[in-house]
């Protein structure tokens, strides 16, 4: 018995020496790692923010030399506790908000009815770019949400085997569809930036709430109103942040260290939740929320009365260029 106690003490002392010499920061700890006091938990708690215990490795992967990094526990706690709350509040909150808005305001109708005359709103290449980015985004969003919430929400429904298979394919789709998504973002930025520069007219639109809160009020707007410009910049800035952070996750040897990699995963996850919530609002107003809006990205042509109500200045510009029928052609036709 005394022999085994002695062996245990020797082992504890050896572990203490190992930790003490592994990193200078560990050697400067405030407590004395005596044979009785050395416990992993105590050691971890003594490490300050940014401290690490590293070892010596012989493979060309510098990150593998991190043995203990206390900040990793904060990162893990964030992934498990705070991120689901952020995502839940943002996404479910937006869904509830939209449902309440639909119940109170109803579908936004064309006040003067459909004229039966069409005006080209988006050319085929613009629609192609929109759907390229949108279709990739939907797959990226669903597969990304599966990473955050799949174990809680889908695993109990599908079972372990099916969930693992689905998650495996979802991860592959997430990794590779990110590239056409990034391409779509770049093209979208190039073709629509000129119509999305904020101006004085946008402030008027915002002050009038875009006219969406009451019938018959339609603040003037050019090709894109302030709300659409907001969505454009959310997509561009949010998409850029998602792309940069996603790039670091795709190629995890690019960040300088494990802490930087964890930082980018947090950025990726938080922006994703906010991005998805914003896109839910965009999808709502472009489909269920506003009569006649989907045609813009469906066929590319919208009703002239719809265009006059929501983009009066743009219609005037198109008419001046001879690219739109004149106002005298418009008349309300009964809905079919």
């Amino acid at each position, binding site marked *: 018995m005394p022999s085994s106690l002695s062996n245990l003490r020797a082992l504890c002392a050896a572990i203490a020496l190992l930790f003490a010499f592994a990193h200078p920061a560990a050697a400067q700890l405030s407590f004395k790692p005596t044979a009785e006091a050395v416990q992993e938990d105590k050691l971890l708690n003594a490490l300050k923010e940014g401290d690490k215990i590293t070892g010596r490795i012989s493979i060309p992967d510098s990150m593998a030399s991190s043995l203990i990094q206390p900040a990793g526990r904060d990162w893990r706690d964030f992934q498990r506790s705070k991120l689901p709350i952020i995502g839940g509040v943002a996404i479910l909150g937006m869904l509830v908000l939209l449902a309440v808005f639909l119940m109170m305001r109803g579908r936004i109708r064309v006040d003067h009815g459909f004229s039966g005359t069409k005006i080209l709103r988006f050319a085929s290449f613009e629609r192609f770019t929109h759907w390229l980015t949108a279709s990739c985004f939907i797959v990226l969003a669903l597969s990304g949400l599966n990473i955050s919430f799949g174990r809680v929400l889908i695993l109990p429904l599908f079972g372990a085997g099916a969930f693992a298979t689905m998650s495996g394919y979802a991860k592959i789709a997430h990794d*590779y569809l990110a590239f056409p998504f990034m391409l779509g973002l770049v093209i979208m930025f190039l073709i629509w930036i000129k119509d999305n520069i904020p101006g004085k007219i946008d402030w008027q639109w915002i002050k009038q709430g875009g006219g969406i809160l009451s019938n018959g009020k339609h603040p003037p707007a050019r090709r894109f109103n302030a709300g659409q410009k907001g969505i454009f910049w959310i997509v561009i800035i949010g998409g850029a942040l998602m792309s940069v952070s996603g790039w670091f996750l795709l190629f995890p040897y690019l960040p300088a260290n494990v802490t930087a990699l964890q930082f980018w995963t947090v950025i990726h996850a938080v922006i994703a939740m906010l991005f998805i919530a914003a896109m839910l609002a965009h999808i709502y107003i472009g489909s269920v929320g506003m009569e006649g809006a989907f045609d813009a990205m469906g066929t590319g042509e919208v009703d002239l009365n719809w265009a006059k109500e929501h983009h009066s200045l743009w219609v005037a510009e198109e008419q001046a260029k001879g690219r739109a029928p004149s106002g005298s052609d418009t008349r309300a036709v009964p809905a079919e």
Partner: protein
Amino acid sequence: MKSFLAALAFAAIAAFCVSSVLDTIQQASSVAYTTSGARVGDPGNNLIGPN
């Protein structure tokens, strides 16, 4: 509708092309991190493995 279908097809083709290119220019971790002094074992068939 044509634009939508074209976008879906392009996204799928682009994703496949990217996966092919990355598979070509990247090495599996068991190969990339193996040196003359250290051999990294094949991680096998899982999400982080080569297959």
